[in-house]
């Protein structure tokens, strides 16, 4: 599977890359804007990402904005819901309001940092991304 990781913090980025590399090919961006660009590029190349992991607190475009942009692009291109990329927010913001905002914007899962790898994997399984 193809994975996009957007994360501005180096340590977290390294962690995510190491953690997710075993499931597929990972691309890494350092802010939300880059993530949206990467997403568009992948789509144009007809190799869309199966999984996108977005940090929330990022420069230029934050995780919410990036999430919304990606969902809007997908809607614009008429991609059916079941084929949309699965998006997981990865963030240290754990207040209920943040989580619900992200759910409303269309992410499928919300992972608090530090990330619980076991649960993360079980979500990937539930999403049929890994077996």
């Amino acid at each position, binding site marked *: 599977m193809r994975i996009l990781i957007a994360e501005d913090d180096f340590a977290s980025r390294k962690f995510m890359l190491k953690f997710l590399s075993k499931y597929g090919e990972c691309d890494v961006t350092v802010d939300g804007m880059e993530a949206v660009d990467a997403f568009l590029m992948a789509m144009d190349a007809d190799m869309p990402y199966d999984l996108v992991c977005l940090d929330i607190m990022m420069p230029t475009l934050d995780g919410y904005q990036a999430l919304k942009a990606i969902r809007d692009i997908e809607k614009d291109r008429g991609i059916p819901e079941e084929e949309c990329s699965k998006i997981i927010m990865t963030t240290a913001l754990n207040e*209920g309001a943040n989580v619900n905002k992200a759910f409303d914007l269309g992410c499928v899962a919300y992972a*608090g940092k*530090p990330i619980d790898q076991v*649960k993360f994997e079980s979500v990937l399984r539930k999403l049929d991304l890994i077996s």
Partner: protein
Amino acid sequence: MGDDMITEGMLDMFIFETEQGLENLENICLDSKDNGEFDDDHVNEIFRIMHTIKGASAVMMYQNITTLSHKLEDVFYYIRENQPENIPHAELLDYIFEVSDFISGELEKIKNGMESDGNADDLIEQLDAYLGKIQGNPAGAHAGDKGTQAAPVSVPAEKPHFYIAPVASERSMFYLIDITYSKNTDMANIKAYIAVNALKGIAEDILFTPADIISNPESANVVLEFGFKIALQTTAAADEIMELVNSSASIEQVEINECTSEEFIDFCTDAEAPISSAGEILMEPIEQPTVLIDEQKPETIVLTEEEKDTFAQKAKSEKDTGRKKAPKSPGKRTAVKKGETQSFISVNIKKMDLLMDLIGELVIAQAVVLQNPDLQVPGLDLTNFQKSASQLSKITSELQDAIMAMRMMPLKNTFQKMNRIVYDTSKKLGKDIELEVVGEDTEVDKNIIEHISDPLMHLIRNSVDHGIESNEKRMELGKTEKGKIILEAKNESGQVWISVSDNGKGLKREEILAKAKSNGLLGNRSEKDFTDKEVYNFITLPGFSTKKQVTEYSGRGVGMDVVVKNIQEVGGILDIESEEGKGSIMTMKIPLTLAIIDGMIFSVSGTNFVAATNSVTEFIRIDEQQVIVEPDGEEYVMIRENCYPLIRLNRFYHLEHGKDKMEDGIVIILSHEDRKIAIFVDELIGEQEIVVKPMPNYIKKVRGISGCTQLGDGSISLILDIAGLVTE
């Protein structure tokens, strides 16, 4: 999930909502247990609750809770859609309670930071079997429905969401770190960044100020001048942080202070402003219980004419306090109208306590001003002063009532818990018992509620276990009515009375007396001399239990004495009434609030004591002839044909220089319940509203003293524990 929850963590929110759901669930079940079935509203409500819990637990990835609640949801989906008749109701209730208990148990684990690892498979299997059973009921199921009911297809499938809780983030702490570099440090900004970098390994969240240390070389000066401040969220301990940060030789000092999440957020929002020096308040623990406060309309507090005049009366009655003042009626609240939308805010109980303390101080300060000796100059015209003073008193008294009202909570929740206890205990004992609840809207101070829950539970269990006879026994005795316990709360003369009455076998006077005799409690009084009350009070003594065999629910030897102790802790008493063969009534009489009381102040050899004014019956000067000395040294005083045990406080507490001659001092008659004692003191000082404070922990419990308070002149006075003295 309203906006008011905005600062709640995801996990807290899940726990809170699930607990509320379970509470509703239990209430519905207990409501319906006598009807033999759920009505449509109940079915819908239970379905909705289980659906919510299922959804929420799925998001939180508590698989066991999700599967179990899903199963119960299925059962109710079937009931809702197919309306089967003759559902075994009692069995269903049991399953619901089991589900509820399972989920509560898991929530407890989650709250304590443990894995939710309970296995609900057995229960799920049982529910499956139950579902099969009601589906197999030919009267209910339509042939075509079979097979499809299991999944609630009518519920629109929601997009799944998952919340992956961070690892151990529940235990993470917040710190404010302040680093001072020595003045001649080069590139302090870079050194500061190294410290930040070192912390990143352990940080869940990190913020610092000045924030531009990398991009702006000028920031080095700011760092040198004001220090470098870091806000850190981490699970690491302070010394670990210290080790990571304190690696540079140019660091002069590192200060690490724990802070609350609020302060952490404050740091985020105004990282520009230098943080105020970390004072005491920064160190309060984060997790504190919060209390929901009913936002009362101000106009609901109405003062009566009588109370408006309180101050005036008080000023006048300073000298003639010989008569007991009518107890003030606190709790002037009116019920909020139904249908009116209520807005609630949730306030940290610490803040409420602080407000309460401050108002207490205000009351004292007011007493200092209004009773100032400077006002005692003869011939001073105080008309205007008195007018303003009474205005001030009115406001402080309203303020006091307002804070009291805020702290008041209905007994509803506590009472509802009892419902479940009766249900469980009576079921296990095979007794058919009905619980009637009266006056659950009665309100009591939050602190008091916490103290009465346990004793109340004990009383209820006692009634179920020992009070009410087994079904067979009742039949034998010809008692036709069902076993019944009435739990009642009401306001009565400035107190709250909570009574547990049952129609069981009542207390056996002879049995108790026999036991008391064998324990040597009767002294040399003859058995006939004891009033029923005195006899019943024996059961409240430690280790006194007439029940021969110990059962699972009560009668472990600890028992009534613990109940009484708990009640006394909040200044209450337990009143026991009973009629053999008919049942008994246990009444807890507790004050509405603990914090501020009217006190009568008197002194004994230079030490000031206070007694609650409403326990003072009278005071009187007597002469030595009225004192009767028993051969064993016990003293009594004879006042108008009444005989009271006498305690000379100076001798009782071995205080030197106290007045010894009856003629020189004064005797105060104190009453507690129906018992009275006389205490002998040097002189009366006056009357004042006092703020009750506990004795500092450091001082061990002193007999006859329940707390201390600060008087108008700033001196400290000890509060007499009348209940304790009476039983001495």
